[in-house]
Structures are given as C-alpha cells and as structure tokens.
C-alpha cells in the first residue's frame, strides 16, 4: 500500500502476463507496441509521528475548548505576540493566503485584500482594506505590483459584491487581478488577465536574466468556463480539442513598465505522458527467480525498466528468424551467442517509443494546485493533482518536467517546499480540500500529511511522512497546508499551517525522521459542528511567524528557545532580511557574517556532539574574546580560531558542520 511511482517517460502499460502476448502480437504483425517504462520503487516506511522527548502526555492540543474569538489555546516553544481580528467588512468571510512587502503583510480574503503594518508586531495596524470579492484571493507581490487570484463564480470585474447571477456573463472575473501598490494605502486596480479555469492560486517568477518582466504561473482547479464567456475556452479531452484548457498551466508575462499589457504567453503542457500506473517494485521472490533463471542460462532481458525472463516459446521463433537472416537453417553456437547479445536490441525495437493509443482523455494530471518557484536553483516543485513534479524553470516561458512522483497514500498534491540548498523537497497532501476534518485519531498518519523527498540527480526519492502528532476533533477542518522555511542556519526547519490543527514547526534536516519542535493550536471555531477556520497559511518573515487565520484574523508569533532550538539559532535566523515574500516563491536564504551565526553552529555541534565539550568551550571563549576585541586583534583572533576549527573538522563526526562554522568565523574575520 505504501509506494511511490516514479515516471519520466511516455505512456506505460505494464503487466507481467500480457507483456508476452503483446510481444507475440508485435512479432506477428511487425508493429511496435506502446512504450511503457515502469519506474523503480522506493520502499516506503510507515509514518511514525515522533513526539518530542519529554513532550507532555496527553498532548495539550487535545481537548481544547471551542470558541470563535475566545477558544482555548495551547502553545509550545512559541510566543504569541498579537492576534488581530479582521476588519468589519471581512469578518465571517474566509481569510486566505499572505504576501509580504517591506513591513507589510498583505492578507487575501474572499471579500478582497487587507494590509497590515507589522512594524510593531505586538500591535499590527490595519492600513488598507479593499473590498473586491473573489475566491481564493491568494496574493503575491513584486515591487509595486500586487497580484490576486480569482476563481469563484461570483468574482466581478468591477469588484462589486453582488456576485454574478448568470452562468455566462461579461461581468465575471476568473483569473488574475493586478493592482499598483506604489501607495499601499490606496491600491489601484490596473489590469486583469482572464483565464479559462480561473486562478485558484498562482506563482510569481522573477527571472534573474530578465529585468523587464515578471511571469505568473496560473494554477486553476475549478471547472473550465464556457467558451461563450471567454472565447477559446474548452474543457474537452485533448484528442477532441488540442487547445483544451485541461492538461496545462498558463504563463502570464507582465511587463513591469506597463502592467496593463500583461497577457498569457504560453500554456505549457507539463503533464504530457504522465500515465504510469502506481505499482510496487519486484518482490524478493521475483528477484530470486530472475537470478536463478540467469544461472540456468535462460534469456533475461530488461523490458519496461524491469528484468524479465523471456519464455522459451518466444525465444524459439525469434532465434529461428535471427538464424535465417544470417543465412542458415540451423543455429550454430556462434549464432546462439550472437542472438543472446542481440536479443535486448530486438526486444527494444519491438517495444520502441510510440505514442499512447486509445480513446478518451489521457490519465494524469490536468492542472496543478501550486507551483513553488525557486529561481536561484532553477527549479520548481509542482503539486499537480495525483503527482508531485520537479520542473526545470531556467527558461521561464517554458518550464519542463524533470521528474514526477505519485504515492498511493497521497490524495491530492497541494504544495511544495524546497530546503534551502535544494537537496530536498517536501510536498503536502491536501486530502479533503481543506474543508474536512482529516486529523482525527482514526485518520491514518500517512494521509493528509507531508511527504519528504531527497533530490538526487534530478530525481525525487521518498524518505518519510510528517503529520501533526496531536489528534483533532471532527469539528476541526485539518490537513497539511501552506508554510515556509525558517532560516535556522545549518538545519531544515519549516513552519506550516494545518487549518484548525493549528501551526506546527518541525525539523526535517534528517529527511527520514522529521521532528516537531514547536506548535500553536486553538479549540474548534464551533463546539457542535465543523465550521471553516484555522491557519490557512503561516510564514516566517524577518523574525516573525505570521499566520492567516481563516475565521479569526491575523496571528503573529516569535520563536522561543527550547531543547530543540537555541537562542543563538533563533537570533541567527533573524539576521536574514527579506524585502518581500510570496507564498509560492521561495527565496534563497543567505546569512550575513555574525557572531551569533558562529554561536548557532557551535550550539548545533554541542547538540550533535560534533565537537567535544572542551573544544566547544574553547571556541566559545575565543569567540567572546574576539567580539570584545577590535581591529587587528579581533581579526587575528578570528583567523586563528577559523584555522584551528578547520583543523578539527577532519576528526569530527559532523565535519561538514565544523567547516560551516570555520567558514562563518573566517567570514567574520574578513568582514
């Protein structure tokens, strides 16, 4: 039941028995069959929530009292700085995603957008409320532009609140709204781009090689609108209409000098050929059988990426034909040897690449929910219905698929987050769409969870699942949702929203063993029934952890030191400064040289016993002395410390971390 499918190639039809009948047909008719390529399987260990050592039992999140604006709360290793209720015009309407610019948090709401000034995080001030209904109103910024997603049927071009009462209407907006926020207190609605499926979410891509444009990748998951409303829209299968709005994403190019000229420039079909069935790898018994067959001298060939024994009934006629071509009636030993060598080629020719045949829509994703763009490493993570995709975005107009994974435990691939150095990717499964309670004690820990993969040579390899360890009530919608990395240097730490499951901060440095390190949770919005609420999304932004609460407003937190996270690590994270942040645009974190950065690495080495207690004490003292010195004395002390650390690295069980520490100290010396 636990398995991934990996797929890159074209269509696949695999099964053990029909293969040979297929081969027979191909041999008889002299035509090639379709070209399947089943993928290797990674074994999937069961998810095991790892309660933090010493965690209170029962979990304080279990059994919290309900309330709309006054529920019971539980908090661990976090401090709640403020909770701001929505402005009146937005109360009772869903708060959605967040974007950040300078000191501002821009909060989407199904009724429009809300802007908060976070300069004093203990007392955020409301600076803008702009009523312009559309779901989901997911927001992104770039410089002076604000982009807002519209998907619901009631969104209007004129921002009116009356909805759209006909199935086909010239007044309806489904797509991207563009605002000029040069004056953030007075957003100016400057343009729209209408799309066939509307925009459920979107991603903004700033190409490092293009300073004149930004690109928006539009993801839409609702049904296709009628062609009478937006000409050219078709929800037909691709073989009926090659211009179908299914099986593609839309790329909008926005000229920064004139955003009113924003338009769709391409509709990449990044899902082409994604039809491989989820399946297990070979069983140990099958592998043993292959080995035995080889030992017996039977013909074993690799077909569809898997070794298979060729039944003698098929070998005989092929051998006969082979020998005949060589001008003989009866095979010699040399013929047999040559045949053995030629057989893989013969088989490959028979099963050579071919277009998928058959009627109806190709199975596979028709769209993505989210695409997380990480331009610094040229990659994107696409969460696309039944698949997680790894995309090459070095050409922004034309993203191409590098790898795809499926997982029988995943219901609906929702969003992706890379770790900072791009060696891992985490996908979320929004099982139930976010409106259902999927964290009950009866719901499997592998369902509605995160799946963590390592990236190795452009392929994704499954390592583990992570789901919040505290069971929630049937009155709380709960499933994995949006979050971001917290720039703890030397570690992969993420904060994530789980709707009414609250927020969870966890460490996935060891991809096989994610560990929760902090949380916040409230009781249900309503004691008697499931009422939408909870954290839609939560992001780290310049030292703050900011959560968009669907029913209750905006929460701002900060990290509190604990056994899992030291004061130095938190302070080092807070040296990272961003000028803006979008939910689906991942920035590469860079840590400026600082004493606290070196101390954070030292704390990690103390935790991992990467250096001895004596070495750590000596290094701490040397850092203190250097910090108290100045000029040449400081430089000399730091250079000396960096060199001695570099020498100690080779003897350490955590040599890489010691080298990071040495580099951080050297950067201080030269800074």
């Amino acid at each position, binding site marked *: 039941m636990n398995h991934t499918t990996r797929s890159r190639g074209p269509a696949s039809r695999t099964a053990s028995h029909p293969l040979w009948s297929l081969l027979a047909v191909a041999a008889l008719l002299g035509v090639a069959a379709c070209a399947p390529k089943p993928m290797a399987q990674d074994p999937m260990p069961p998810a095991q929530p790892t309660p933090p050592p010493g965690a209170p039992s029962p979990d304080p999140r279990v059994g919290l009292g309900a309330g709309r604006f006054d529920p019971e709360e539980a908090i661990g290793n976090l401090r709640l700085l403020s909770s701001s*209720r929505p402005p009146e*015009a937005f109360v009772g309407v869903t708060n959605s995603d967040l974007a950040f610019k300078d000191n501002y948090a821009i909060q989407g709401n199904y009724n429009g957008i809300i802007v908060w000034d976070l300069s004093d995080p203990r007392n955020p001030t409301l600076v803008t409320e702009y009523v312009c209904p559309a779901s989901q109103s997911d927001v992104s910024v770039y410089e002076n532009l604000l982009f807002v997603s519209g998907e619901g049927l009631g969104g209007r071009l004129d921002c009116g*609140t009356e909805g759209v009462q006909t199935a086909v209407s010239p007044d309806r907006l489904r797509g991207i709204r563009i605002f000029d926020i040069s004056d953030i207190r007075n957003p100016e609605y400057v343009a729209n781009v209408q799309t066939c499926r509307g925009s459920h979410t979107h991603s903004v891509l700033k190409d490092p090689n293009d300073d004149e444009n930004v690109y928006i990748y539009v993801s839409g998951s*609702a049904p296709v609108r009628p062609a009478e409303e937006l000409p050219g829209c078709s929800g037909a299968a691709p073989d009926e209409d090659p211009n179908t709005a299914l099986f593609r994403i839309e790329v909008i190019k926005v000229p920064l000098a004139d955003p009113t000229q924003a338009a769709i420039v391409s509709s990449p079909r990044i899902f082409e050929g994604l*039809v491989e*069935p989820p399946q297990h790898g070979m069983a140990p018994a099958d592998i043993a059988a292959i080995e035995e067959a080889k030992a017996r001298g039977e013909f074993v060939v690799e077909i569809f990426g898997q070794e298979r024994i060729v039944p003698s009934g098929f070998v005989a006629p092929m051998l006969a034909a082979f020998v005949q071509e060589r001008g003989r009636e009866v095979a010699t030993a040399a013929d047999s040897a040559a045949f053995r060598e030629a057989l893989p080629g013969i088989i490959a020719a028979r099963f050579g690449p071919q277009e998928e045949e058959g009627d109806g829509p190709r199975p596979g994703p*028709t769209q993505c929910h989210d695409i997380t763009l990480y331009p610094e490493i040229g990659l994107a993570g696409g969460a696309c219905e039944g698949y997680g995709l790894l995309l090459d975005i070095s050409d922004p107009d034309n993203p191409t698929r590098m790898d795809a994974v499926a997982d029988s435990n995943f219901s609906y691939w929702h969003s992706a987050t890379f770790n900072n150095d791009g060696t891992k990717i985490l996908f979320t499964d929004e099982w139930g769409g976010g409106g259902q309670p*999927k964290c009950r004690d009866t719901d499997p820990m592998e369902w509605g969870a995160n799946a963590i993969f390592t990236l190795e040579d452009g392929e994704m390899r499954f390592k583990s699942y992570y789901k919040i360890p505290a069971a929630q009530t049937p009155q709380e919608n709960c499933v994995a949702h949006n979050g971001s990395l917290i720039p703890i240097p030397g570690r992969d730490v993420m904060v994530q929203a789980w709707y009414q499951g609250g927020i969870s901060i966890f460490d996935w440095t060891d991809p096989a063993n994610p560990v929760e390190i902090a949380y916040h949770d409230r009781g249900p919005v309503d004691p008697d029934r499931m009422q939408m609420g909870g954290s839609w999304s939560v992001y780290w932004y310049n030292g703050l952890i900011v959560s968009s609460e669907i029913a209750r407003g905006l929460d701002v937190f900060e990290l509190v030191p604990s056994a899992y996270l030291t004061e130095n690590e938190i302070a080092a994270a807070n040296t990272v400064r961003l000028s803006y942040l979008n939910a689906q645009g991942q920035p590469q974190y860079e840590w400026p040289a600082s004493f606290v950065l070196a101390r954070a690495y030292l704390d990690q080495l103390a935790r991992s016993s990467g250096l001895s207690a004596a070495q750590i004490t000596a290094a701490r003292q040397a850092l203190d002395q250097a910090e108290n010195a100045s000029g040449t004395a400081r430089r000399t002390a730091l250079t000396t410390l960096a060199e001695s650390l570099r020498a100690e690295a080779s003897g350490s069980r955590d040599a890489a971390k010691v080298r990071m520490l040495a580099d951080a100290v050297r950067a201080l010396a030269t800074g």
Partner: protein
Amino acid sequence: MLLALTACSGPARLDAEAPAEAPAADASDLEAIYWARQDSARARFTDADVDFMTGMIAHHAQALVMSALAPTNGASPAVQTLAARIINAQQDEIASMQQWLRDREQPVPEVHIDGLTLMVHGAGDHHMHMPGMLTRQQLEALAQARGSAFDRLFLTYMIQHHRGAVTMVDALFAADGAGQDEAAFKLASDIHVDQLTEIARMEQMLEALPGQTP
C-alpha cells in the same frame, strides 16, 4: 430560479463603500457580525445548488456501498486503500452536504445502507437516475466478484460513478446563479478535482491489473 436572492440585500450585506477606518468593534460585536454574515451567505443559493447537494448525497452513498465490499471481496491492498479513502472522504462530504442543506432549512436526505440496498430518505425518488449511478445488476455483479475480478469491476464501475459526479458538477456550474455561495462552490469544485484526480489514479490502476488485454 433564484430562491432567496433578495436576502443578499439584507442588513448584513457587505458594503463596498464602507470607510477603511471603521471604528474597532469589540469581540461580541464581531461575533454578532460573524454570525449575521454567515447567515447572509447562507441565503445566497439556488434550486440548482439544493438539487446538487441532495443528489450528490445519494450519489456519494452509492460509492460507500461499493467501497464497503472491498475488504470482504478479496480486493488487492491497493484497491482496499483506495476504497478506504473513498469511504473516509465521501462520508465526510455527505456530512458537509447535509449540514449545508440543514443550514439553509432545506430537506436533508438521510442515508441508510443495508448491504447492497441503499435507501435515501428525503431525496425524492429520482436519485437512482443520476449520471454514473450503478444499476442493481451492476451492483450485484460487483458483489459477486472476488479477487482480481473484483478489482477490475470495482475500478471500472467507480470510474463510471466518479465521471457521473464530475458531470453533476459541470451541470451545476452551467446553471445560472449556482455556485455563488462560497461553501457550495468549494464543495462542488473539491468534488470535481478530487474525483478527476481519483479517476486518473483508477485508470492507471486498471491498466496495471494483471491479465489486462492491451
């Protein structure tokens, strides 16, 4: 066809002209606004929305009947996982749709399942004719199948069944004024995308079944 559109202009309706610097309301005021707005949102629905919810409850209920056979009929582990997830998902969605109807003071269909017999009280008698619904003969064939024959039939019928649900969502979206309500839009579009995703997965599973004729 619009049932209660006039309610949209009621007192709790949003006012686009509201001043940005409205005086801060206290918690109990906000709570009152919250409820009023929830009530107002609930008034914005059409006959098509009600028919959709009512019909989809019965439609989902048949998926429960089908999925409940998986553990007893020797389904493969993959099909059992799928069936378990369908039961979990569609039970929750039935509860959501019942709540949606209850909130709008509409008749709430109650589902009773006894083996292969599905009784939906309060849904009228047209529910067996919805797109994708299995006939009694199909259900009985499924109930008699075992092992890989069950897997094949289950996947084939569930694809048929899911396609019917997708058709029902498309029909809802083609109805004037329907799907304006946030909860209805979300429920319907979640059903649409979830079932399309599941159809793709089931088509792959079907192709991977042993003995499949190419």
